[in-house]
């Protein structure tokens, strides 16, 4: 004879059984295919602030001027003056009395970001079309236009991430607020 207690017990067990089945099933769903970091050499474009992820190659601003003229100046102007607030690359002063113009030179805290962003997203009409050498050259030219490196200074995986950015200390990390 069924009693309420028995029913309760049976349903609890049934629920438990279902939960166990689900939990077992979930443990078995592991469908990631193992790969090696080496297999990501062409896939992982991240150039880190500490220098990790920068490819081999070198470039100077003097070399970068020509490619900048042909590939970048349409939006950014020959001297980085831009054709809009979104495309200006040089100038600005964070301590100006007016609302400050924020550019690579006045605002960006890390030089690595210049290389990283050009490599992954520029030129906007043909991203990832520059070679690593050209990317170093263009990054060097953008840093040169901002007075941050000399025209013949060699930019590579070691030197570029170490270029000192004027506003490097201008940011307050809020990531603890989640």
């Amino acid at each position, binding site marked *: 004879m069924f009693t309420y207690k028995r029913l309760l017990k049976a349903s609890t067990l049934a629920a438990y059984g279902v939960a166990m089945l689900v939990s077992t099933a979930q443990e078995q769903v592991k469908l990631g295919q193992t790969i090696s970091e080496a297999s990501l050499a062409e896939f992982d474009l991240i150039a*880190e602030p500490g220098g990790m992820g920068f490819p081999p190659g070198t470039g100077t601003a003097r070399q970068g001027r020509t490619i900048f003229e042909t590939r970048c100046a349409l939006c950014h102007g020959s001297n980085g003056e831009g054709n809009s607030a979104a495309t200006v690359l040089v100038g600005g002063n964070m301590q100006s009395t007016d609302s400050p113009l924020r550019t*690579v030179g006045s605002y960006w805290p890390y030089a690595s970001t210049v290389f990283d962003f050009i490599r992954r997203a520029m030129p906007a009409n043909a991203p990832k079309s520059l070679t690593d050498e050209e990317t170093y050259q263009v990054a060097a030219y953008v840093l040169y236009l901002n007075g941050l490196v000399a025209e013949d200074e060699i930019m590579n995986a070691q030197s570029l991430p170490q270029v000192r950015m004027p506003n490097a200390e*201008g940011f307050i990390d809020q990531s603890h607020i989640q």
Partner: protein
Amino acid sequence: MTKSSKGQNKALDLDRVAANGLLSRRHLLSAALGGAGLTMARPVIGQEPGIKLEIPAWSKTPGPGTSPYGSSSAHAQLERQSGFGNPLYPGGGASRSPLQHLQGTITPNSLHFERHHAGIPAIDPAGHKLVIHGLVRQPLMFDYEDLLKYQMVSKIYFLECSGNSGALLYGGNPDGTAQSLHGLVSCAEWTGIPLSVLLEEAGVLPEARWIAAVGADAASMGRSIPLDKAMDDSLLALFQNGEPVRPEQGYPMRLFNPGWEGNTSVKWLTQIKVTRNPLQFRDETSKYTDTLPDRSSLQFTFPMDVKSLITSPSGQMRVTQGGIYRVTGVAWSGAGSIRRVEVSADGGQTWGDALIESQQLDKALVRFSIPWRWDGAPAVLQSRATDSAGNVQPTRDAVIAAKGTINRYHNPCIQSWGVNTAGEVTNVYL
């Protein structure tokens, strides 16, 4: 005046909850339940001369049959509104949800706001990979078809661009609508795999503190996300309101960080690199950082603040005298659920509690309303939300006092809709 309308007006006066015509939310509730239809009824019932209802033409002709993918009525065409993009860079830009024409809390997929940094990639899921590598025991690569075999969760969450409502900070767009001023917020049911499940499969190493998420768009847009968030409630979202995530929302898969600025929910997700430190991508240094009056800039400002706005009546709408309006809007918070929404009709001097019409879910839109009788005098309508953490939506003055006007991100300020004597509703700055 008839006896019944006299009695009605007396009852309305007694139920005033704030100045300038705001009435108790009980009026809307009771009307909805059919208990006291008087409050929403026309003043005179059953005395319209000359009305003779007939069977309409559409009831006499069979209509078209089924369709493979439905569409909205020709009489109810809603559209997203795009800004002026850069002609040299057409893939960038944003479109905004028509908030003033939506009801409830769920944004239809076709009307969910968009923000792209290099256009929408045309992804064949068969060729799309999700890679998890970096500080993990074993780097892994996932195929789309395999990911569909994982257990999923479904959650209703809002998504808001951190640049939403930015125009209010500099006092722009006086002709703005709810859509043009605030349309970079939407809400959907997102279905996907808890990111923690996939990260655990790869085996996160003890020294890891962040993940870098990168999309498969032409900008390979990347954001750094604290590992704590990724292991908490971040989703690898594969479905949106029941159907595969739309291309403009990240098809075949996107990251979804509940309650956080929209840009962190990287679309077309293809790479997760587990790291010790944030990687300082362009969109977390040059952009999406909040410069303060002292010229320091807040970085990694993730949660979206408690916020609300009245969507009807709102900018470019018009009210007429004599009736009772259902003033309605939406509220949300990245810090939890919405606990309370108040409405003012006198520019914030007096407030009345609105009715929350919807479920009060964590990090999701809620719908509120309050009855309002406009007497023809100028009015300023505002709403003010309070969330489950006790945060109260600030005034515009308070936001500007705290963060200045250089910054354009993370503006949760109270919206003021002015109503003039002609009944025209406009965006006003008090």
